[in-house]
């Protein structure tokens, strides 16, 4: 069996030789040096060993973005355990699913959530951490000597991404998926160096955030800023003011909100690069950001199945409204529904191939078969158009909705909405608000229920008590019937078209 470098060793060793006292991470007012990160990572690895964790066994890291997250992640890589980067924002039922579906033997919880996790994931052993690492850690870093030597096929980590059925699906990756994006994207496209200070508002539990805040800083010997809280605008602007990042990774909603919050004609920012992903960046926002800050937003697209970006705008040559060009090292095809390549200038289904591709979903053979194609390409579910080498997002081929870079399955929202007694039938589809996608709800009322001016608000409050805010519909439309196919399936595509293209009809909504 061919061996492959252990990503933890590759990412950390050069830093210990070159600049052990340099800050690898900043969180609030505290810094974690490369030396301390290395020691803490090896201590964590020893803790996993003494906990009886063997190579290949799954360890769920349910931590916020604090020092403990990269420490635990490094520890898993060093021992060969498979780190399941779950983060701290999952709903209880999703975390339970992740623990059960992955077959995890160990759950890493923050002290603030440990009791709750123990309740919802009963029976699994826990390691409890504070922001800095395990709260009870007697392991010596010197005791950990035998770093795991992975084979090329060994999985290093797994991410969970929302699926169309509403259940998050596991996407396992090999060590190379942590290393290759550093050269392909970090070096060749973005030109990141050791002088950079990186701030990603996307968390470590997302593919975008994991590479931005774990792989990039360690590979280039840079410094990354971690923010454990919610990425609200005040906190983000405070962090930018205080720590002056040179590279900023975020999502369109955050860029838009910063731009909207600015009362002055200009906004002075310390960044040299502003990068966006997670959902399509409206051309309006690209231009307004450039006018305000003098900076381009470098838009790109990646997927959990591919580890990081495979299409991205080249800095200095970004095109408004475009997602960019193919990242070196990846191959992209746009095909029709029969799998034939479409000509330049025509819309097609986006297929991507590259060495960072996940080979299959975890325990989902049928879904894997239809997504990870035998010719090495992965079906993304996105529809794109290519012109002059630049790619333009045109929508989704399935029903999933990307809101603030988070997937929303219509199924979950519909299930919750159907619980309200006024709702007989409903369907949820993407609608546009200021050029960004949001869930929209189409509702058929129960017999005898009258449409009143306050009903949409009542349904919103009902859903807010059951779902995260980003899943709650931004618009409601009340219909006599839902459009259906001849087999009775709801035609969400027709609903999408209806809501996207109509003028706001004040007479229909309430």
């Amino acid at each position, binding site marked *: 069996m061919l061996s492959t470098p252990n990503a933890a060793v590759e990412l950390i060793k050069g830093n210990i030789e070159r600049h052990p006292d340099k800050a690898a991470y900043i969180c609030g007012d505290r810094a974690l040096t490369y030396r301390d990160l290395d020691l803490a990572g090896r201590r964590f690895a020893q803790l996993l060993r003494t906990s009886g964790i063997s190579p290949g066994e799954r360890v769920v890291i349910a931590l916020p973005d604090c020092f403990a997250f990269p420490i635990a992640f490094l520890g898993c890589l060093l021992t060969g355990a498979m780190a399941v980067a779950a983060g701290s924002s999952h709903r209880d039922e999703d975390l339970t699913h992740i623990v059960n579906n992955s077959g995890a033997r160990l759950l890493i919880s923050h002290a603030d959530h440990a009791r709750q996790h123990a309740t919802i994931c009963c029976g699994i052993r826990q390691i409890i951490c504070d922001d800095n690492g395990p709260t009870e850690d007697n392991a010596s870093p010197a005791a950990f000597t035998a770093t795991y030597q992975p084979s090329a096929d060994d999985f290093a980590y797994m991410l969970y991404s929302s699926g169309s059925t509403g259940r998050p699906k596991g996407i396992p990756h090999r060590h190379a998926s942590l290393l290759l994006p550093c050269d392909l994207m970090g070096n060749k496209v973005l030109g990141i160096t050791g002088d950079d200070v990186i701030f990603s508002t996307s968390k470590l539990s997302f593919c975008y955030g994991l590479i931005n805040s774990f792989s990039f800083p360690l590979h280039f010997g840079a410094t990354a800023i971690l923010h454990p809280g919610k990425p609200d605008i005040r906190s983000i602007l405070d962090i930018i003011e205080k720590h002056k990042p040179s590279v900023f990774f975020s999502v369109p909603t955050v860029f838009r909100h910063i731009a909207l919050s600015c009362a002055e004609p200009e906004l002075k920012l310390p960044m040299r690069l502003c990068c966006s992903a997670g959902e399509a960046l409206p051309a309006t926002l690209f231009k307004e950001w450039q006018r305000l800050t003098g900076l381009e937003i470098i838009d790109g697209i990646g997927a959990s199945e591919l580890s990081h970006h495979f299409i991205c705008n080249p800095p200095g040559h970004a095109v408004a409204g475009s997602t960019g060009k193919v990242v070196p090292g990846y191959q992209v095809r746009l095909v029709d529904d029969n799998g034939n390549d479409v000509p330049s200038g025509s819309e097609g289904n986006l297929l991507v191939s590259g060495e960072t591709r996940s080979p299959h979903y975890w325990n989902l053979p049928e879904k894997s078969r239809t997504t990870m194609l035998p010719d090495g390409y992965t079906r993304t579910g996105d529809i794109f158009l290519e012109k002059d080498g630049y790619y333009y997002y045109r929508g989704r081929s399935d029903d999933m909705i990307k809101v603030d870079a988070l997937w929303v399955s219509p199924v979950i929202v519909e299930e919750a909405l159907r619980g309200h007694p006024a709702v007989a039938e409903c369907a949820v589809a993407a609608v546009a608000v200021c050029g960004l996608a949001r869930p929209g709800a189409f509702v058929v009322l129960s017999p005898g229920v009258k449409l009143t001016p306050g009903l949409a608000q009542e349904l919103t409050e009902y859903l807010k008590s059951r779902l995260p805010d980003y899943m709650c519909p931004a618009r409601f439309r009340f219909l006599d019937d839902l459009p259906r196919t001849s087999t009775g399936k709801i035609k969400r595509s027709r609903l999408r078209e209806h809501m996207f293209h109509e*003028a706001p009809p004040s007479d229909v909504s309430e």
Partner: protein
Amino acid sequence: MDIIAELKNLMLKVGVEESVVSELTPYLPLAGHVMDSMGYTAFIVAVEERFGVTIADDPDKPFIRSLNDFKKLIEEKD
């Protein structure tokens, strides 16, 4: 119709506190100062549906930031 008063009424409906709304000047950007991203989205939808306007993603039009911007857009529609 007092458009600013009506806009403030819509802000109350989407959950902005009364004390914040009553102190609000028409020139202050609403996003980041008064509303978070979700609140701002809810407010835009409420304005669109109440006044029959579209806050479009149009590169040739300025960003709508303050109550005065919303008022201007509504008056232009009329």
